[in-house]
């Protein structure tokens, strides 16, 4: 069992040694929680020395986004070109010329509802930009019909420090106690299209922060960034309605997405808050298409939420932990929508961050002795979030709630490539076999 130590403990260990500038031969292994918030008295030089390895990894991961889309010169070995001429008697001397044909899907006659998040000053808000989801007439990236809008990413911000995988946490250590700075950072440095502020400290079992106080944090975030935002509660079904009501009130007119209305809480209050203060509602169900229909129906019929204010979250399970259900559930929902089930013709959102719950994304090594070596987790984590996200992108998901900057870059790169936004130097694959890779 790995011994858990805190960085501040290490500082204590070395505090009598004077100025330590570097630790030679030190590698960081095991589950080290870098607990920057606790303790104080941290020696910055020591932190740097200890952080060196993680700094290198983050640099490497940052390189990925920089490298994306930059084709290199193709290096081929001198493979001999296939020689023409008849080596042996062929049964046919001419190709049977044939034309490939395929039709479009005729049953896709309906358009997914467009939902715009964020309001600019022209519409009574203070956002500089808005995000429009939905509008599809086919499965995503298909040739049957162009997608009208690309996919968007909203990055998670929390109103208090929370436990995170090491690979995630090292990106946020400087802002972990300041949601406004955190929000700024994801927009400025990590290219987030939107910000999700999770008011988790309001949970009575955590800090029980009063709703009014939590609403202050929402105001701070709205001040700090000018992109559209998602407002999330703590997930406590008793407290969330009150928290989201207060948050909706202070954010009046900004067209935020309130997360979430669900069947196990008082969704009417959340719907009413959205209607009263001009926001959209995230309709969240758990991997069950009929429950999704039921909740959407209730939001529309019972609570009078306009169609253009509903986004669905049919639940995201991580790669290896139920992504098959999440994928197929979303694909079925989208197909039903395209074929005219008007209880399901809404854009979708995914809590892609759930990928970090998969042990493959954060554990140092496999807990099972019989497994092959899992390799460094710093590279495993982001790709777990990426593959979870891209899978749901192919099922029709529109908006991604994500956490790791590298994952965000790669998911954006892929979805925008498949959308058709990315111009790249064509790569000649005619003789890929001989490529020196």
């Amino acid at each position: 069992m790995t011994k858990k130590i805190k960085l501040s403990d290490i500082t204590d260990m070395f505090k009598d040694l004077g100025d330590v500038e570097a630790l030679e031969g030190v590698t960081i292994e095991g589950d080290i929680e870098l607990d920057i918030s606790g303790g104080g008295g941290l020696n910055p030089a020591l932190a740097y020395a200890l952080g060196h390895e993680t700094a290198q990894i983050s640099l490497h991961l940052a390189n990925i986004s920089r490298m994306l889309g930059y084709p290199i010169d193709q290096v081929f070995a001198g493979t001999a070109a296939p020689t023409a001429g008849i080596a042996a008697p062929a049964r046919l001397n001419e190709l049977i010329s044939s034309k490939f044909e395929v039709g479009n899907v005729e049953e896709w006659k309906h358009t997914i509802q467009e939902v715009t998040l964020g309001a600019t000053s022209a519409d009574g808000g203070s956002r500089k930009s808005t995000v429009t989801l939905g509008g599809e007439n086919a499965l995503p990236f298909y040739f049957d019909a162009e997608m009208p809008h690309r996919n968007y990413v909203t990055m998670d911000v929390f109103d208090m420090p929370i436990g995170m995988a090491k690979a995630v946490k090292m990106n946020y250590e400087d802002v972990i106690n300041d949601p406004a700075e955190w929000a700024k950072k994801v927009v400025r440095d990590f290219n987030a299209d939107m910000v999700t502020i999770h008011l988790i400290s309001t949970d009575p079992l955590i800090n029980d922060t009063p709703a009014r106080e939590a609403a202050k944090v929402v105001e701070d975030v709205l001040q700090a960034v000018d992109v559209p935002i998602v407002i999330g509660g703590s997930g406590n079904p008793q407290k969330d309605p009150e928290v989201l009501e207060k948050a909706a009130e202070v954010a009046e007119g900004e067209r935020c997405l309130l997360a979430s209305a669900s069947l196990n809480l008082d969704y009417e209050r959340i719907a009413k808050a959205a209607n009263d203060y001009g926001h959209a509602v995230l309709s969240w169900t758990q991997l069950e298409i009929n429950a999704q229909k039921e909740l959407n129906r209730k939001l529309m019929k019972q609570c009078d939420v306009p169609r253009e204010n509903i986004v669905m979250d049919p639940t995201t399970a991580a790669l290896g932990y139920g992504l098959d259900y999440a994928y197929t559930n979303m694909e079925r929902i989208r197909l039903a929508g395209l074929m005219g089930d008007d209880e399901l013709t809404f854009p979708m959102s995914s809590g892609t961050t759930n990928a970090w719950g998969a042990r493959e994304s954060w554990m140092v090594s496999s807990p099972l002795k019989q497994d092959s070596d899992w390799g460094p987790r710093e590279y495993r984590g982001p790709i777990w979030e990426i593959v979870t996200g891209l899978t749901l992108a192919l099922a029709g998901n529109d908006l991604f709630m994500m956490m790791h900057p590298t994952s965000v870059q790669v998911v954006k790169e892929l979805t925008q490539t498949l959308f058709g936004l990315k111009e790249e130097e064509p790569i000649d694959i005619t003789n890929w076999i001989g490529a020196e890779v």
Partner: protein
Amino acid sequence: MKLNSPLQAYKFLPGTNCGECGETTCMAFASHLIDRSLKLTDCTPILDDKFKKKYAELDGLLAPEIREVEIGVGDNIVKIGGDDVLYRHKLTFFNQNALAYDVWDTMDEADLVARVEQIRDFKKFYVGEYLLLDMIAVRSISGDPKKFADTVKKVMDTTDLPLILCSFNPKVLKAGLEVAGDKNPLIYAANKDNWQEVADLALEYNVPVALFAPNDLDMLKSLAKTFLEMGMENLVLDPGTFPTGKDLRTTLHNFLKIRRAGIAGDRDIAFPIMAVPLTAWMAHDDPVSASYWETVVASVFTIKYGDIMLLHSIEPYALLPEMHIRDTIYTDPRKPVTVDPAVNEVGSPTADSPVIVTTNFALTYYTVESDLSSNDIDCYIMAVDTDGIGVEAAVAGGQLTAAKIKKGLDDAGFDLKDKTSHNTLILPGLAARLQGDVEDEVGSNVMIGPPDSGRIPGWMETNWPPEKK
């Protein structure tokens, strides 16, 4: 397949309800033929000579829309293709896509053997079985037939995994086939220039062959039609995998078009499709970036209709997601989501053994179960009925509550005071917020375990047995 209902299949069966297939009636057997959960050969009477004609006819009607192609021989044989639907929820996808990793003929011998061994031996335990890699692709970089043959030989000395022999030069392919011809390798590839010579090789050695027509579906179909005409049915189609930009988008469209046409009944194009995510390495020189992008491309084409895949990176951070996304897409959606709610034994628990609570979501349950059994922990594991929802979501959604846990214990007739010396339940770390409720409702002690069951062994070292109160 050309049949939609059990009745259509039933008409061809002997109709004696003999029960030899394991079903009580021929009608029941017919419905299993339609959902492809039993094979026609499971009906032994119909194999009799007098039913020969009906057998042949029904066999033809039941054949999957996309042809099945076998590569390799013996225990490691790889089957690809064989699908009947465009969406997995309509039935299921059959024959998971084969993952092939490359070696090349300019590698020095020690590196070659080490790489093949890594590919051969990589494994990950998952829900009761191992995820494994399937194939080795040997690429000719030198263009030298002898070098290629030597490399193929060395690979065969190291592993029985099926092979893909890769060269556009028929002489090189022939040299490879002289070594590996009786192992039914896939030869890659016939293109518009070399197709006659490659066809000769495929016929001579009776091996499956890949057809390569980068971004030219007319040419791809022409090649397929021509090879079919020459009597070859074991074909694999490669429409080219362009790794970046608009060309990647076009590549996706090509895959979608080929499969849609094949399922719709265009027999000339109804073959397994090959993706080559390895081309990502032609777009990125940094190995981490290239591995990442290769994994991304591989995932896209695992989800959308790639049946066999040629890859380069063997870093675990590439292999693990590639194996898992494949499992994700090819898992039969008809399999149960849940296990029966119960209190089960792992190993040989005694009154001093812990009682560990989890949900009845099959994936969660089997993960916890394998973490416990593979670490030789004797214990009770309790699957609470959460409607098949995992721990974190079930706590949030109200499917995992103190009352549910109480009910689960009662239904299982598991009295903690009677069955254990410690009267203690261990809740998952992600259900920590239920602690007080469970203590009140069940009247037992409650300990909070780690958030991930992989950490139970370490948790046990410091927390078990509980201190006597």
